């Protein structure tokens, strides 16, 4: 047997090893080892990240079902880094109360979903992709319902499982049509023969709808707010960054490599959906009172911006999309780290809980402010550059109307992001307000790293150059 295929899969292999190691450690390890579980999980995840940065071999395995390139390695690295941040931020919460005795569950379920996402990114065949989507979705419902004694968390889990069942059903339905139309499920074969026949188009639309559920594009986004609000904060962060990023990466690959020949058909659809996503996400974000719900709609509108880069279509478009997601990862994780800290202290997730945060916890308020500025795209923070590159990619394709609509919506988004800054810096806290919050060292590390990235990633142009080189290596169309 040829084992070189497994060498290509080094990231998945490392991840599986980490998952099994954590499982065995948790189940068979003596009770006294339990207290180190958090450290072990963090180190294991960091090791997986490190493996991802080793020099890569590229190629295909399993007869083309699995594809590894430098770009997929980079995308998987983004996903694993996001997961590492989630581990850093949620560890303290996992240890509190009745959750303490099932701490390990969280780590290996999360690792399993991450494995599914990596398989999605590397898929070269629709069946493989489908397996990846399922593996990424079903355990996520467990995570959303992780805080099972809280009604909202249980509700989030139920809604997520119902919705992912629906969407994967629709996706499977679409794939069956597609198979009927072209007679193959391999990406390279489909891309060679796909043509705009009604059967293939129906297949494409339903496949797309299933994927759009993961990215929460309008009108497939309705689950987002309820699930984000109910799920534990760390899981919300994971959903909003890793899960969404994986969907976007798959969309990038499938739209251009598989359905590139029928671009004329889906381009207008994507145009309309991205405008609808940005606008609807913004309009709902305006009136939220709960910070997690607020971030649900913020992430919906951010997904709309990502679609702008996807529509760019060139190597520049791909680079700007991946770069945008990278920056979005740091900005969102910084915000969720602060939310987790505030929630851990006060138990509240309404925006009013942030009133007067500057007075009680100036550093947390500062980090939150940077994250919001970056999400809104204010220079010189990383978010400004990522938005700039996305707009430049869309403008390079002549989409001036689209860029204009996106710019107007940026103004609206600035308003609601600044509402939170206002709450922190101008509003006075009711009564005593929050005391001094002591974040644990893990969360503090994540916040420091995110802050450094928000300030640094935009300035250090080598990072964009690196992403650009990766995407220039991937031949588009």
């Amino acid at each position, binding site marked *: 047997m040829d084992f070189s295929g497994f060498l290509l899969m080094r990231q998945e292999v490392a991840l599986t090893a980490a998952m099994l190691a954590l499982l065995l450690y948790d189940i068979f390890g003596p009770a006294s080892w339990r207290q180190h579980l958090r450290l072990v999980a963090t180190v294991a995840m960091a090791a997986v990240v490190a493996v991802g940065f080793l020099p890569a071999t590229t190629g295909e395995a399993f007869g083309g079902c699995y594809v590894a390139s430098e770009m997929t390695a980079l995308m998987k690295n983004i996903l694993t880094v996001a997961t590492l941040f989630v581990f850093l931020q949620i560890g303290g919460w996992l240890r509190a109360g009745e959750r303490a005795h099932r701490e390990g569950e969280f780590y290996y379920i999360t690792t399993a979903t991450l494995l599914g996402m990596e398989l999605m990114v590397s898929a070269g065949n629709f069946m493989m992709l489908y397996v990846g989507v399922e593996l990424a979705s079903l355990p996520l419902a467990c995570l959303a319902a992780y805080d099972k004694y809280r009604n909202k968390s249980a509700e989030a889990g139920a809604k997520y499982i119902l919705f992912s069942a629906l969407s994967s059903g629709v996706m499977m339905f679409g794939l069956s049509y597609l198979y009927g139309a072209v007679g193959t499920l391999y990406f390279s074969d489909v891309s060679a023969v796909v043509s705009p026949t009604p059967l293939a*188009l129906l297949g494409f639309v339903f496949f797309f709808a299933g994927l759009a559920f993961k990215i929460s594009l309008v009108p497939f986004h309705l689950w987002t707010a309820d699930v984000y609000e109910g799920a534990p904060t760390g899981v919300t962060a994971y959903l909003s960054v890793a899960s969404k990023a994986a969907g976007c990466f798959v969309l990038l690959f499938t739209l251009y490599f598989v359905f590139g020949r029928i671009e004329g058909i889906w381009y207008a659809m994507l145009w309309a959906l991205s405008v609808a996503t940005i606008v609807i996400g913004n309009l709902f974000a305006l009136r939220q009172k709960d910070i997690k719900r607020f971030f649900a709609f913020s992430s919906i509108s951010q997904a709309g911006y990502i679609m702008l880069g996807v529509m760019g279509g060139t190597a520049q478009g791909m680079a700007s999309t991946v770069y945008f997601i990278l920056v979005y990862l740091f900005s969102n994780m910084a915000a969720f780290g602060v939310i987790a800290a505030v929630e851990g202290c006060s138990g509240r997730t309404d925006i009013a809980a942030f009133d007067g945060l500057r007075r009680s916890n100036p550093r947390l308020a500062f980090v939150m402010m940077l994250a919001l500025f970056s999400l809104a795209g204010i220079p010189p923070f990383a978010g400004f550059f990522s938005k700039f590159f996305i707009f430049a990619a869309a403008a390079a394709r002549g989409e001036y109307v689209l860029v204009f609509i996106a710019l107007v919506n940026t103004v609206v988004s600035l308003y609601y992001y600044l509402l939170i800054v206002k709450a922190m810096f101008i509003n006075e806290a009711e009564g005593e307000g929050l005391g001094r919050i002591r974040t644990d060292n893990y969360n503090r590390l994540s916040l420091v790293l995110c802050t450094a990235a928000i300030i640094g990633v935009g300035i250090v142009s080598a990072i964009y150059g690196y992403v650009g080189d990766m995407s220039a290596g991937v031949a588009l169309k």
Partner: protein
Amino acid sequence: MEFTLLIPALPLLCFLFLGLAGHKLCPRAAGLVGTLSMALSTALAWATACIYFFATPHAGGYEQIVPMATDWLCFSQRLVISVGVLLDPISVMMLVVITTVSLMVHIYSLGYMEGERGFQRYYAFLSLFSFSMLGLVVAPNIFQMYIFWELVGVSSYLLIGFYYTKPSAVAASKKAFIVTRFADLGFLVGILVLSYYTGTFDLGALTADKGSLVIASTAGASFMGLSVASWAMALIFMGGAGKSAMFPLHIWLPDAMEGPTPVSALIHAATMVVAGVYLVARLFPVYVFAAPDVLQMIGYIGAFTALFAAVIAVTQTDIKRVLAFSTISQIAYMMTALGVSGYGAQEGPGYMASMFHLFTHAFFKALLFLGAGAVIHAVHSNEMAEMGSLRKYMPVTNIVFLIACLAIAGIPPFSGFFSKDEILAAAFEHDKLLFGVLWVVAGLTAFYMFRLYYNIFWGRERQYHHKPHEASWMMLAPLVVLAVLTCVTGFIPFADFVSSDGAPLHTHIEWPIALSGIAVALVGIFAATLLYRRGGDLPDRIAARLGGFYRATSRKFYMDELWMFVTKKIIFRLISTPIAWFDKHVIDGTMDAIGLSAHRSSSAIKGLQSGKVQFYAWIFVVGALVIAIWQLFF
């Protein structure tokens, strides 16, 4: 030579450290941290100079070296902003000047600023300034130069407004920032025009081979009767004129004296204000070959400014303002020298003279300012009327101040004599009119400097509330060091190191011109001695006889009033008011409309998010079907 990167990097690190953690240190420790990092930078700068001039092989003159550069932003294949370090004779010389004066100011401030509120902040800003100025002079790329140019402006703004509770300091900092920023607009437009045509920001490429790239790429292009190259270089000079306080953009510099005195010595005498001269020198081949008309204009503007500022300096009574106008006049001297220079060995002594004067002037002008600071520290006033006979109380300050006055007046063997003589000789060769103006200015300079000197250290005995005392050793040590430098720097064979094309020049003192220069300086000193040494009322009587001219001069020829008229009456009323109306009603109105419609539509669609999962699924399926129908049938 990669270590040269550390010269600007150390002050940056120091700024970050003091800015973020300074308030946790005791003031003295913060000052020492700043001073030590500056000392390290100074040592590195001197090492760089030694290695560059003596230990690096140069074939036929000193070449440009770029020890390190990285591409920071790539707009296109050719238009790249790189960040790095460029070494050539003038940038190495500037490194030495900036670090040395900055170190002296750091040490001096330990004594001068003792007990001030915001001592740590002061040192953080000093580090920021040093970093920006060093980054400016080593820029291999005109855009990097522009970035640091603005950073220098910001740190100057912060330091002028250091006493931010004093309304006059706040006004002065704003004025300095706005005036120089206005000039920088020209600089930026000039850079963009130049790079649009040449397709590069790289200084080496722009100046290489006698500016042939600029000439070739702008050939035939003209705008309003002036060639594009001239437009670009004139606009770039506008930025330089703003920073270097050339007429009519000089109005910010006298007000900038509101900042702490050591800051005036560092920024507004020795380093930042010569940035304009440095800029013209940096692009000198382009000026000579592509825009000779602009270079000639620079010469005339310089000569006029030199005379204008020297006349005003004669009537000022605030000692720091006298020095400020003297600075304007001396920088204009350097500009004039560039204006009368050509390129290469025979034609180019003006370039060398200008850089030489920049070099010597930095030390003796810093010495004058720091000496004035010691006086102000002792009598708690800037006004001449409240000083007199201080030589009895402050003997060391008296001597070093006298040395500096002799140097700026151009009396041998002090450094100013040598550099001023080179400038006069170069002007004499090139343009007799400009020589005449500069010659008169030399006499005026000697007169007003000795007027200052006698009024402070001689003249009438005053009634002091506290008996003035000599400054502490921390303030005196830099004064003595600078005085020694003032005595010796004139003997450096400067022409061997710095010239317009890098090849050593052979110069000698032109005795007829030198003697005429010394003679006019002596006349000035003699007149000042006669009028001010005893402190009689003769000067007041002369002033009364001059009447209107004296009043106009002491009011600085009403330049401030003229600018205020232009900005308030013309720009504000005719341009700003309509724009403000447009902004308030049309732009704000549009924004309000966006906000209002966003809010309205937001509440109109809130029902969609009902929380019922059946409804969500329904929308999902309907959405997919609608898209499918759209794709199939349209």
